[in-house]
Structures are given as structure tokens and as C-alpha cells.
């Protein structure tokens, strides 16, 4: 820690105005970021509860805890809640909202009222979805595949789809706001190639949100129209095409995977630089690899449909294009590790999460190549191998990065330090619990255990018990930060403006920041992570 200037008792964004209404009607991006934290934390634990029930059911080979029908609803609601109400908004709407204007030296996002509106729309979508759960749930799987969702399912498909439909508009508004902000609101001197890599990755994420989400909206709308008016858009008996649904759904949902992982990469790029005291190796390559992932991500949706009925030619094309995603992903991983080389690496909690991300994302990404290979995919499709693969990306990747980011910016957000020892311990618990939960699932899948089944042959039980045990450990690892971060909000020691001696503009303003972020508009004369230029200022020289 540097000898920090005494923490002032000046007005900041937290104490400038008080009362519930001052939060519910705020247009301050920092407060809206925190509103999102509250919402998605709630959804995370609801979705986690469903996961816990599933893992408990899978402790034994027979369906004894819940019926098969209930199990179908559990994995459906787990998927819907976790994908649309936690992962998609996780880093962008919370950390992105809070940090982007601070990082680029702006007073707020471009459209503050739209930002608040997006939070309300998000919650409206969430409430509609929760209503569908309370009414009896949905059993189609989070993918809403037709004709199951349109013809055969008797559960609350329309309500759940409408919940997702509504929340999509909040994604679009957030993405739109970020793009306009990053284009137009940068402070003097902050050129594109001086931006922190967090901003580049957030920009790529926003592009995907704005371009892909409307397609999902239309797809779900068509499902609803088919169910309500009994027409056969996706029903072959009435002249429809069930595969068209899968094409349109994955045209959104594959890029949506990058909406989940690109922000994770955004956080990790910053963390690696800060805790190695070095600029990110190959800044330009890492910056463009974010855009590369966003663009190539739009061209690979067919790899979800290798066994669904696709010509050999298109399957080959999608297979090759899917391999292409590995190129920008590998650029990132190699450049992060190259950044560590000869850096003065320190192991604070955020760095533990960042390193965890790099390792787990690599495993998730590599197994993604297995799935992009046509022959192998036929063997492991719809098995636990796929489940393990995408949980390594989404939980091992996105959630680890989210937790790392929350810890890293916590001093800025709350003005308090979190308890380092406890935080390191829970990072370790998360890492161990995660691997114990999901690594056995790779083996299960390879041995032929299909996904979405409540019962299984006895010989799979050992691996399932390991997985359930890991899930309980993982649960502890998630509850711990909730407890100590809540505690630290009031009782932890106050944080200096720049506890990590980081270079970003967000660290050159008090913690917590004043309402308009900066006492005076900053002027930038150096590149991102330029520790040389900032040596004196940071007390390193």
C-alpha cells in the first residue's frame, strides 16, 4: 500500500443523497451498477438453488428426491435464470456500468436515463420469469427447442419466453449505451489505443449485445405466436420448419456465449497488468482479438446443430469456423501469460481469480475444440462432456472473472477494503469446489452419461457423488464473499484512492468517487498500464 492521502469525509456518490427513492430514481451509473449487483445476486442464488437441488437428486442413481418432470423444470429454470438473469448482465451491467465512465474520464454514461430504464426492464423480465416459476415452471430446457416448446410442452413456456424477451431489451439498451459512451465520451487525450483493455472487450461485448439480441427477441416472439395462435411456424405438420428455430436461436445464443466470456477477459486483462506491474504484452493484439472473437462468434452457430440435421458441407464449414475462435482466444491467453513473465507478480485475491480464469478458460476452450470436431462431437453431443465444457467457460471463466473484478474494484465501489485473508481462502474454495464439481463431468460425458436425465446407471454414481460434493464446496465459496463483502461495506477499514497502485483513471479519483466522478476532467498523456509514465504518481519510483 502506498502512503495514501487521508480518506476524506467528503460527499461521494454513496452519501450525496440518501433514502430508498434516491436509489430507485438515480441516473448515476455507479448507483445503477450497484442496483444491478443487488438484482443479479438475487437471481444467482435462485439459479444456484436449482443447481443444488439437481445435484442432490443426482447423488443417487434413481429418481428419489424429485420426479423426472420436476427435474426437467429444475434444469430449465437453472439455465434460464443463470444465462439471462445472471451471466449476460453479470460483468457488463455491474462492473461495466460502474467502471466504464470512470475509466474513460467521463461524468456518466451517454444516456443515464436509458441506463436506469434498462435496470427496470431487466427486473420486469425477471419478475415475469419468476412468476412463471411460481406458477409451475417450464420444462423445455433453457433452449426452448421446437416443437417441444411450441406443441408438446404443457408448462409456462410463453411466460418464461416473454420474461427473456423483455430482459433482452435491457441488454440492448446497455450495449447501446456503452457503444455510444466509448465512442463519444472519452476525456481529452484518451485515444483508442490508450484505452484500458477492459474498455475494448466491453466494446466488443456491446456490439454482440446490440446485434444478436434482437434476433432472439424475434425468435421467442415467433414461438409465442405459434403457441397462442396455433399456427405452424416451427411445426412441420403445418408447413413449418423446426430447424429454423435452432438456427435463429443459436444465431443469438452462440454469440451470447461471448457476451458472457468477453467481459471476463476484459476484467482479466486489467488484473493481469495491475498485479504484474507491467503493461499487457501485445496490447494491440489483445485489443483486436476481442473484436475478432465478437465477429467470428457470429459465424459458428451451426456447431450446436451437428447432429440436428445439417448438410455435410455446412457442418464442415461451421466446424472450421469454430476452430477459428481458438485463434483470438489463444492470442489472449498467451499474451496474458507473457505479461506475467518477468513481471513483479503479487497474489492478492483478484489475481488469484484472474489466474484461475486463465487456467479454467483454457480447459473450457480446449474442450470446445473437441466439440467443434465433427467426429468427436457426434460421440459426446448432449452428454455431460458438453455440460462440463460450457460450465468451465461460464462458471470457471465468467463467474471467476466477475468475482475477481468485484474484489478488485470493491475498494473503489464501497470505499472499504475487503478482508484479504478470508477472500483468498474463499477464492481457493471456489477453485477447488469448481474443479471437483465439473471435472468429473468431463469423464461422465465421455463415458456416455447423457445430460438432462434424473436417473442413471449405477456405475456412474462415484463420479456423480464427487460432482455433488464439489458443488457443495462451491456453494460455500460463493456464500463466503456475500457475507464478508456485506460486512466490509460498513465495518472494514477505509480504502485509499488507489490501493493497488493501478494506472487506470478510476484510481485517480477518491474512493468512493464523487457523484460526477472527477473533481476536474482528467487529461490523458500516456497509454494504458504505462507504469513508467506514472512511476512517481504511483509512488513506485
Amino acid at each position, binding site marked *: 500500500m502506498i502512503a495514501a492521502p487521508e480518506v476524506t469525509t467528503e460527499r461521494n456518490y454513496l452519501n450525496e443523497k440518501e433514502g430508498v427513492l434516491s436509489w430507485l430514481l438515480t441516473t448515476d451509473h455507479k448507483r445503477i451498477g450497484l442496483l444491478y449487483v443487488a438484482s443479479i445476486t438475487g437471481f444467482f442464488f435462485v439459479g444456484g438453488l436449482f443447481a443444488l437441488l439437481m445435484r442432490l437428486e443426482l447423488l443417487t442413481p434413481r429418481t428419489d428426491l424429485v420426479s423426472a418432470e420436476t427435474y426437467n423444470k429444475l434444469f430449465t429454470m437453472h439455465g434460464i435464470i443463470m444465462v439471462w438473469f445472471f451471466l449476460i448482465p453479470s460483468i457488463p451491467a455491474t462492473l461495466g456500468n460502474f467502471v466504464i465512465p470512470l475509466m474513460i474520464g*467521463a461524468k456518466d454514461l451517454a444516456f443515464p436515463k436509458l441506463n436506469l430504464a434498462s435496470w427496470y426492464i431487466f427486473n420486469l423480465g425477471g419478475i415475469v420469469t419468476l412468476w412463471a416459476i411460481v406458477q409451475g415452471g417450464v420444462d423445455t430446457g433453457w433452449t426452448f427447442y421446437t416443437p417441444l416448446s411450441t406443441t408438446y410442452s404443457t408448462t409456462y413456456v410463453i411466460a418464461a419466453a416473454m420474461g427473456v424477451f423483455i430482459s433482452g431489451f435491457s441488454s440492448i439498451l446497455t450495449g*447501446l449505451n456503452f457503444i*455510444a459512451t466509448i*465512442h463519444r465520451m472519452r476525456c481529452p487525450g484518451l485515444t483508442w489505443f490508450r484505452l484500458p483493455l477492459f474498455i475494448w472487450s466491453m466494446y466488443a461485448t456491446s456490439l454482440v449485445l446490440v446485434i444478436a439480441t434482437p*434476433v432472439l427477441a424475434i425468435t421467442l416472439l415467433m414461438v409465442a405466436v405459434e403457441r397462442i*395462435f396455433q*399456427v405452424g411456424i416451427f411445426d412441420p405438420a*403445418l408447413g413449418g*420448419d423446426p430447424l429454423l428455430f435452432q438456427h435463429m436461436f443459436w444465431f443469438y445464443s452462440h454469440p451470447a456465449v461471448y457476451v458472457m466470456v468477453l467481459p471476463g477477459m476484459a476484467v482479466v486483462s486489467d488484473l493481469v497488468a495491475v498485479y504484474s506491474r507491467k503493461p499487457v504484452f501485445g496490447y494491440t493484439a489483445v485489443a483486436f482479438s476481442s473484436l475478432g472473437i465478437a465477429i467470428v462468434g457470429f459465424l459458428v452457430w451451426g456447431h450446436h446443430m451437428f447432429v440436428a440435421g445439417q448438410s455435410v458441407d455446412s457442418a464442415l464449414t461451421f466446424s472450421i469456423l469454430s476452430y477459428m475462435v481458438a485463434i483470438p482466444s489463444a492470442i489472449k491467453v498467451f499474451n496474458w501469460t507473457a505479461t506475467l513473465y518477468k513481471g513483479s507478480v503479487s497474489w492478492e485475491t483478484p489475481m488469484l481469480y484472474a489466474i484461475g480464469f486463465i487456467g479454467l478458460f483454457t480447459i473450457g476452450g480446449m474442450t470446445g475444440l473437441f466439440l467443434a470436431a465433427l467426429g468427436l462431437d457426434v460421440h459426446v453431443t448432449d452428454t455431460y462432456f458438453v455440460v462440463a465444457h460450457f460450465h468451465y467457460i461460464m462458471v470457471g471463466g465468467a463467474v471467476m472473472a466477475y468475482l475477481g473484478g468485484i474484489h478488485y474494484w470493491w475498494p473503489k465501489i464501497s470505499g472499504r477494503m475487503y478482508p484479504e485473508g478470508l477472500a483468498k481462502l474463499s477464492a481457493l474454495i471456489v477453485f477447488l469446489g469448481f474443479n471437483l464439481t465439473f471435472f468429473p463431468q468431463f469423464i461422465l460425458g465421455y463415458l456416455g452419461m447423457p445430460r438432462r436425465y434424473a436417473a442413471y446407471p449405477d456405475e456412474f454414481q462415484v463420479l456423480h457423488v464427487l460432482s455433488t460434493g464439489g458443488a457443495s464446496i462451491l456453494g460455500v465459496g460463493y456464500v463466503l464473499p456475500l457475507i464478508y463483502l456485506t460486512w466490509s461495506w460498513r465495518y472494514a477499514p477505509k480504502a485509499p484512492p488507489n490501493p493497488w497502485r493501478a494506472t487506470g483513471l478510476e484510481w485517480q479519483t477518491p474512493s468512493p468517487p464523487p457523484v*460526477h466522478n472527477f473533481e476536474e476532467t482528467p487529461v490523458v498523456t500516456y497509454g494504458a498500464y504505462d507504469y513508467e509514465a506514472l512511476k512517481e504518481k504511483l509512488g513506485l519510483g
Partner: protein
Amino acid sequence: MASTTSPPPPDVLPGREELAHREHFATPEQQRETAMAGMWIFLATEIMMFGALFMAYTVYRLGHPLAFAEGSKDMEIVLGSINTAILITSSFTMALAALAAQEGNTRLLGWLLILTILIGLAFLGIKFTEYYNHYQDHKAPGVWFESNLSDRGGLEMFYVFYFIMTGLHAIHMIIGIGILFVLWLMTLFGRFSRVYHSPVIVCGLYWGFVDIVWVFLFAIFYLPGLHLHG
């Protein structure tokens, strides 16, 4: 209608621009450019939204070419052509409104907005007349649909997309008219001037986009069966 007690020329009113200028922007120019950028990004979203429907339409038309031609034959080409003509006219009046706003001619701006709103309403009136006629002909999809065409499913699919796509377009028109009405009120209260008028320009972009979408809808629903009229 536009301001009977016409206010003094807005440019000389002190504090007006300060009122419109949001404090998180460094300059009014930055604010204006940001608003434009926001609308262009929003239109990209809109293109993808309609684009998904155009793609689905294409898939089904390739699958049921004769049924789609048959459905298109039932379209009321005269009403459709009139609607196309008047909607393009409304784009023209909206563009003139944007011009008037830039020149600070708020009186003209008010009248042009009213004119655009009226044309928009006329479009919707004709559109809903067509919808009603289709309903009377048992061409509304679902339980109301009747046809003895051999490819009944294909014909119904034509109408499904017809109603979804023109319906989505009509929703955009209704929202657009609502926005123009708010702009008109803002004009009445003297909110716009030669210096501050970006809401008019930004909403003009939206209105223009919605009109262009209609031109494509006209082409894919009204024209494919035209030759069948003989």
C-alpha cells in the same frame, strides 16, 4: 395550432441552451453527436430485428413459392401502393421538419410535425382497413384461417409473416407517432431553437428508417403475385 401566442425567437431567450444541455456532456456539440450515435446504434438493432423476420420469410417463401405467390395475389395492391406513396411523403415532411428545426423556424416545425403525424395516422387507417378485410376473408392465421388451396399450410405461413412483419411495422409507426406528438408539444413550449434541436433530427432518423422498412415490406408482400392478376 403551433403556438398561437408565438414566443419570442428562442435564440435570444437566456438560459434556454443551458436548460437543454445535460451536465455530463462537456459541450452541446458532444451531446448532439452522442444522441445521433445512439440512434444509429439503435437502428442497427432494428435492422437485425426486422432482418431475422426477412430471413424467416425467405426460408418459407423458398419452401412454398406458389402459396406465397397466391397469398400475394390477395393483397390489395391499390391500398398498398397508396400507403407506400403517402409514407414516402411523410418522410419528406419529416425531413423538412428537421430542416426547419435546424433553421430555428419553430412555427414551421410545429406544422410539419402535425402534418407528418396526420399522414402517419392515415397510413395506419388504411393498414387496419386491410387487416379487417383479410379477417373478413378468413385469412387471419389460426382458428380463423380458411382456404382450400392444396398448400394450405404455405398460404397460412404467408399470412403469419404478413401479420407479424406489417404488425411489427405498425407498432413502430404508432410509437413513432407518439414520439412526434411529444416533439410537437416540445415545439409548442419553445424547447427547440437553432442551437438545440437534436431530438427532432434523431427522431427524424427513426421515422425515415421505419418508412424504408415499409418499402421492403411492400416489395415482398404485394409485388410477388402481381403478375397473377393477368
